[in-house]
């Protein structure tokens, strides 16, 4: 009885410690990862093929009243890609595509956020992918879901060959288009 009580309080302390340790710093807001998604779509021989990333981390501070202090950082585990088959996932981790052994993570870091009016914003930042860093602009729309969570949805077109993704026999854009539409859906809890 005593032992189980001790075990329980130990578990409780461990849980508290874990939560405290995992809590983000510097006013970052917890992204609801289960509700969020980073996906993409490209055309393969004229047919839309979709994919997404199973594992990624985001650190977001979004203050509509103070966009200068707002910040978005994303780390995407490229090997966690979800595609049509295991065969194609293995291929895309390889050297001709992401080369995840050498470049495991894609990193996005915002540099400026701009309000466009009517819940629309523009996030400018740098995307580092496979050793190439380029400036991108992601337009987003901010909505609220039924639970009051803040949902930011946006998409941008990434030219895969700009980042040397799909080289060699895959460089022909008739097989896989150069344009890849990347869709981002980030869900934040209600503003405090």
């Amino acid at each position, binding site marked *: 009885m005593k032992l189980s009580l001790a075990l329980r309080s130990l578990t409780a302390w461990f849980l508290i410690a874990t939560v405290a340790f995992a809590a983000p710093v510097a006013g970052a807001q917890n992204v609801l990862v289960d509700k969020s998604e980073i996906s993409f779509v490209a055309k393969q*021989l004229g*047919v839309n093929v979709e994919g997404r990333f199973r594992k990624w981390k985001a650190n977001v501070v979004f203050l509509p009243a103070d966009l200068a202090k707002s910040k978005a950082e994303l780390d995407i585990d490229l090997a966690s890609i979800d595609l*049509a088959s295991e065969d194609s996932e293995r291929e895309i981790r390889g050297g001709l595509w992401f080369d995840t052994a050498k470049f495991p993570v894609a990193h996005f870091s915002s540099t400026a956020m701009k309000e466009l009016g009517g819940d629309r914003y523009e996030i400018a930042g740098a995307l580092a992918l496979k050793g190439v860093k380029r400036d991108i602009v992601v337009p987003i729309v901010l909505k609220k879901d039924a639970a009051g969570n803040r949902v930011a949805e946006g998409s941008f077109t990434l030219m895969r060959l700009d980042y040397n993704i799909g080289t060699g*026999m895959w460089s022909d854009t008739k*097989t896989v288009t150069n344009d890849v539409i990347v869709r981002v859906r980030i869900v934040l809890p209600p503003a405090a």
Partner: protein
Amino acid sequence: MMRFVSARYSGVAIALHWLTVALVFVNLTLGLSMVPLPLSPQKLQWYMWHKWLGITVFIVICLRIVWRANRRPPPHASMPDWQRRAADCSHVLMYVLLTLIPISGWLYSSSTGVQVVYLGLFPLPDLVSKDRTLASVLKWTHYGLNSALFALVLVHVIAALKHHFIDRDGTLARMLPAAWTRSHS
């Protein structure tokens, strides 16, 4: 020397039968050779052609079913009752398999998240959504149905040749083009 020449299948039925033979032969060969290939643009191309040919088979089979429903096939040559029943059964089964195989392939493609766009022009709806487990089930269903068809076609061919060369009852000639039959009789 023919002992008995029965009425023949109609020209349309004969044409559609041999068109099916050609399409299925090419697509089976394509299917079996593309699967073990390492992933490459060529493999993707072959998969796409395989899907297009498969949908073509489906269309041809639909035409054949409509044709068959509206035209009685010629009567069987004289043969034991069980053979007649076996022939009818195997024909129905081949129609069923030739309908189900393209459908299973189409669903399999959808379950891997790749929509089928026939000839690059006509998108077929995705009746199932992307699902790894379902994809694996559909893949083996597609393979299993094809194996059954292969076995059935083997019996079909052996039976046709037996009727032609051993029984000499004109069964095969019913399904051969008129010109071929004339030049060989």
